């Protein structure tokens, strides 16, 4: 870790001005991943702009029923918030299945979205990694690849995105609010993270210097049955081998609304649009679920060590869909 300047921002404007789009500026939220990466030498900022005390720590409901989560709301507070637990259980569950109580107390909404892959080759400066050092190669593709991607990976990168929260946000059709020098803009959560392609160094569509100010959960998913299922190597405090977030609305024995997103399978939360399309209007039967999920996963290209992720993802998705189809709708307010 090299010496750096530290600036505490008192407003969003002050933060973006202090950052000034400089390559070696970083925003500091909870620090749970950034400080970790700084110790490893993966991140080497010259200036840290501390945004953790910005007035963005609220959860507010709008008149249209949507809910805005401030970027600095801590993960534990978000998971415990009655609005979230009541209307968006998938988000609360996803948050609570990630990390530990201590880490959730520090990690912020914005920081969680921006956490970087836990690929061991990315974390080790002694190894090639196109994400960390473009053009250096990928140690993982032909290396120990059990934890890596089966969908959407490229010759350049097979990393997965580690966030649980982001998977739930993708399934909720959330919008990510950004503020940069050019002013505010909004991106769908499902499109916020990128596939690696030939630019794996870019995790997200965020422009350098842009700050996440909040996340908006649309009212459309509020109160629909939703849940998160995660499989990991130990019973707690581990990243996902695979996970799935599902929002399911069934009316008159037909699937009216369904949103499915996978975690642990790709460089970004994997929104299963093909499966969703196949299910809408169908009867929520085991066969329909299986067919739809298989359609989605048919494009999986497992690496040497991770073929298990395909049946694992299929099993948890079908199981969760079945479970939600049998569940009564949650109250909408």
């Amino acid at each position: 870790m090299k010496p750096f300047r530290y600036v505490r921002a008192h407003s969003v404007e002050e933060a973006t001005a202090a950052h000034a789009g400089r390559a070696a500026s970083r925003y500091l939220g909870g620090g749970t991943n950034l400080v970790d990466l700084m110790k490893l030498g993966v991140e080497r900022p010259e200036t840290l702009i501390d945004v953790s005390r910005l007035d963005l720590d609220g959860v507010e409901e709008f008149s249209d029923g949507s809910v805005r989560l401030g970027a600095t709301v801590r993960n534990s507070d978000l998971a415990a918030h009655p609005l979230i637990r009541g209307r968006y259980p998938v988000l609360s569950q996803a948050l609570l299945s990630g990390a530990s109580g201590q880490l959730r107390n520090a990690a912020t909404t914005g920081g969680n979205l921006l956490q970087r892959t836990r690929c061991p080759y990315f974390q080790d400066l002694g190894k090639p990694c196109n994400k960390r050092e473009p053009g250096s190669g990928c140690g993982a593709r032909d290396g120990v690849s059990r934890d890596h991607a089966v969908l959407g990976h490229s010759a350049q990168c097979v990393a997965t995105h580690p966030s649980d929260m982001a998977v739930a946000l993708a399934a909720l059709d959330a919008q990510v609010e950004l503020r940069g020098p050019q002013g505010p803009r909004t991106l769908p959560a499902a499109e916020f993270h990128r596939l690696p392609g030939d630019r794996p160094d870019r995790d997200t569509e965020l422009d350098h210097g842009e700050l996440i100010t909040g996340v908006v959960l649309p009212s459309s998913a509020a109160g629909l049955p939703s849940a998160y299922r995660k499989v990991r190597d130990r019973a707690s405090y581990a990243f996902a081998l695979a996970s799935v977030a599902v929002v399911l609305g069934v009316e008159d024995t037909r699937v009216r609304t369904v949103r499915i997103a996978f975690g642990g399978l790709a460089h970004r939360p994997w929104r299963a649009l093909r499966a969703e399309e196949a299910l809408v209007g169908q009867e929520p039967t085991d066969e329909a679920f299986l067919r739809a999920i298989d359609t989605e996963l048919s494009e999986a290209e497992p690496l040497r060590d991770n073929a298990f992720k395909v049946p694992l993802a299929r099993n948890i998705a079908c199981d969760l869909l079945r479970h939600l189809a049998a569940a009564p709708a949650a109250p909408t307010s």
Partner: protein
Amino acid sequence: MPDTVKALGAPTERREGPDKVTGTARYAAEYRPDGCAYAWPVPAGIARGKVTAVDDTAALSVPGVIKVLSHLNAPRLAEPDDATLAVLQDERVPHRGWYVALVVADTLEAAREGAGAVRIDYAEEDHDVTLRTDHPDAYVPEDKDGTSGEHVRGDAEAAFESAPVHVDVEYHVPPLHNHPMEPHAATAQWQDGQLTVHDSSQGATTVRDVLAALFDLPADRVTVVSEHVGGGFGSKGTPRPHVVLAAMAAHVTGRPVKLALPRRQLPAVVGHRSPTVHRLRLAAQDDATLLSVIHEVTGYTSRIKEFVETGAAATRVMYPSPHARTTHRVVPLDVPSPSWMRAPGEAPGMYALESAMDELAVELGVDPVHLRLRNDTDTEPDSAKPFSSRHLAECLEEGARRFGWAERDARPRSRVHGSVLVGSGVAAATYPVNASPSQAVAHAFPDGSYVVRVNATDIGTGARTVLAQVAADALGVPVERVRTEIGSSDLPAAPLAGGSSGTASWGWAVHEACARLAERLTRSGGKELPPEGISARADTAGTADADSDYARHAFGAHFAEVGVDTVTGEVRVRRLLGVYAAGRILNARTARSQFVGGIVMGLGMALTEGSTMDPAFGDFTESDLAGYHVPAHADVPVIEAHWIDEEDPHLNPMGSKGIGEIGIVGTAAAIGNAVYHATGVRLRELPLTPDRVLTALDAGA
């Protein structure tokens, strides 16, 4: 002499408890001598080759960096017996992660930054880090102490072929890491030619002797203190490179130096459990008596040091069969040096043997508890010596009773709870009784208080407490009147806390010293003691290490109940129970903690812990605690640990066997056997993670 309640066996609270819960117990990196500098090591970035250049320009320009040491400028050391301690002595890189430089700085932050700025050039050579049983370099190591090499009884192959019932199976155990919670650390200081080191070690006397030899000093010029040690599990059993580096850096800079190894560097430099491949061939008569046992174990070692994971050693102890062959083979590779990890040999070996026994029970159609009882013995099969005590049958029967084994439906896949399959399994456990010579001094003060001094190490076992109990009984006084001084090489020399032998070794000497002191006190006939008090000394050389006509081992039985989720492949342990025959239990409270702790590590070995040697880079992919999954709270159910009363007159004066390791032995097999019972599918490679279990379930369905 006053009447006293017997101290030994009582559940006395550990004496350092208040210090540990208030944060005042100090560990090796928690001393801050004036002017203390910080060191940060630089690991090699290649798997094999030579350092051709060290560019320290950038590192030395980092503000706060004092010194960059490498083989080019480090002090020459005398050649150590343990080649892993010859740090910064030459340009050779025997494995990735081997230390090639050390940065010393005023602050931790500068040391870390400096280490990242050292540029090393290498001449890289082809490496080979892949363990294969057909590796052309595999050899049978010399059997120095009866636990290694090859042992043969009868004609094992022919008997195997001729038997009516056999199993021929292969089990795989991956590399495993000790990962004590306290990373290896040392604070070293030279003053007037005297070296003082606070080291995180399982045995400070040996560290003192090794440092004295390396730096060519008389032993009395070196003091090593290991007052509180944050676990070791074998990885701190002998000196490790960090303590040599700290002493070296302090010598060169003339300042006290603190070096705490970064967690990610541990797997490469502090030892680990070698992966092992076990081929087990068991043959039995129709009446379930074993006819032939063949256990072949292949593991690896590094290029610089032979270490053998003696996985077949326990097979020589467990079951009688007229024919047997137990063979170790080891392959030297360009890997970090493996070393001791809790129950080295027994843990992986008994996983394989006890899993194969379960398979044999299935082949025979007999209950697995019955199979073990049917093959019980009073005589150690390999040596033909009588057991000093065994009581394996009692452990199995007591465990079966407590666990409710009789109600078990033996059919696999017979308990289905929704998507979860429930099953139970059993496995036996064994661990040898070890003891080494130790010295101790007991001292009586005129006020009626006593102190015993011995360089024992408390790595979490409660040594201070149990040694006070030993002393109190030998002196015939209440335990509160006895103080223990441990954890410094200036105290009477003592062996390490390892091999489940610490309490036996130290306790033996403490007992002898106290018995002598009591005798002197009796002889003095109650006369007032001189103001400084009186002492008695003991040295158990020739006694503690004397040969015995008996085979001496602890035994145990483990029972496990698991749930296997057929949707996810997740295995969760629902119940674990161990029953042990381990001689006299000296402190019921701390002993239970050791048994339970061993079982938890066995649970990790079964389900969560696994490391991968990366063939391309030659290091462990799971190098930190996020990647290497030691069990968390949520993995661990209620665990029962019981013991039977065992009186064995052929042990030490306390009548105790070691208890620190047997808990891990057999636990993994019991869990694996329970997974088979739950699912009807046999998995033969650890750990039983969701990927493996789900794949096996799909293949079996």
